[in-house]
């Protein structure tokens, strides 16, 4: 079972009212972030990695930002697998 975790980013200047930030700019920024990160995850397709059958759940997370993506690991998957 693979869990591809997609984490909504912290935006500049956000505060405890962020969950009522329905401003067009706020909605657009979060929407775009979700779109970009999911595209990265789909492109990396970490669920294609061979896995240890004893691990029931494998959690995959993206590295913080595209610019800081980790180098390819032994299996060629760039990003973190926990």
């Amino acid at each position, binding site marked *: 079972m*693979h869990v591809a975790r997609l984490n909504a980013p912290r935006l500049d200047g956000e505060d405890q009212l962020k969950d009522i930030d329905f401003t067009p700019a706020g*909605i657009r920024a979060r929407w775009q972030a979700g779109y970009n990160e999911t595209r990265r995850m789909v492109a990396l397709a970490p669920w294609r990695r061979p896995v240890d*059958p004893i691990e029931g759940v494998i959690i995959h997370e993206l590295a913080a930002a595209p610019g800081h993506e980790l180098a390819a690991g032994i299996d060629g998957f760039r990003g973190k697998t926990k």
Partner: protein
Amino acid sequence: MPRLSRSAPTKLARGARRKGPSLPGQIVLVLQGGGALGAYQIGVYEALHEAGIEPDWVIGTSIGAINGAIIAGNAPRHRAERLRAFWASVEQRAGDGWPDLVPGLGNVFANLVTMAHGVPTFFTPNPAAWFGQHTPLGIEGAAYYTTEPLRETLAQLVDFGYINGKHVRLTVGAVNVNNGEMRYFDSRDEDICLEHVMASGALPPAFPAVRVDGAPYWDGGIYSNTPIEAVLDDKPRKDSVIFAVQMWNPEGTEPATLWEVAGRRRTSSTRVARRAISRGRSRSTTFATSSASSQSMSPKRRAIRQRSRSSPPGAAARRCMLLGSTPRDSTARIS
């Protein structure tokens, strides 16, 4: 903003072949609650849709239940468009046109307007709440806002007949006000209707409880904002690729002001609850995989599994916490 895909829709009857990439197992989309943060989920769905990946099962709480209902309640070709329609309708434009002399001031103003006036297609102030904290309003009226507008909006955007036609499984989380128990309403087991989605988003004290089968329900997020547990607890458990969308990012620089501390506290408490349950559950899932896995289980793991089975029911929460604090390095970590 991402371009709306014009590609041909994928027919998603159960067992139908997908046009997209082949993934190992059913595709599950898990959507946490988080109000306006839910805009992130739309981007997630659009990117999956463009890649030819449509969920077999959507699980959501609160705004995740609302977005989830729009996804599961429409044919694939209409989903992105309906999600966009919902989010366009809830935009708060009151801060538009404010000069950007003080960064963020327009946002503060827009948020104040949202608190004072609500969002016309989502929630509006409940005048009965002005009569004071002790006025008896009943469980379905005791809230600062009414969510009647959301009922109308969802009725226009979601085809509940489509949901109950079982094209895509939909599960929404809510908590029973009378006994505090979490309940996942699941279209596999029962018909899902507007009430279930409304109940999942009924965050008190802003929003009033919603009655389902006679019992009042609140937003499932007040008990557990970790809808992924519904997949891990599913019976029978199936191979899955789960896209789990986390809305409350706990990472950042040290908060320095009271305002920042208040913001971080909310994020951190959500995070703690999530870790305690979801990591605990995922570890126990590790120990309880299929029989093929248990045959190759190491003696140490078998012992842990045995112990977890024999623990008294009261120890369950503690066990989750202990397992949740297991160092991550104990699992495969390849960077």
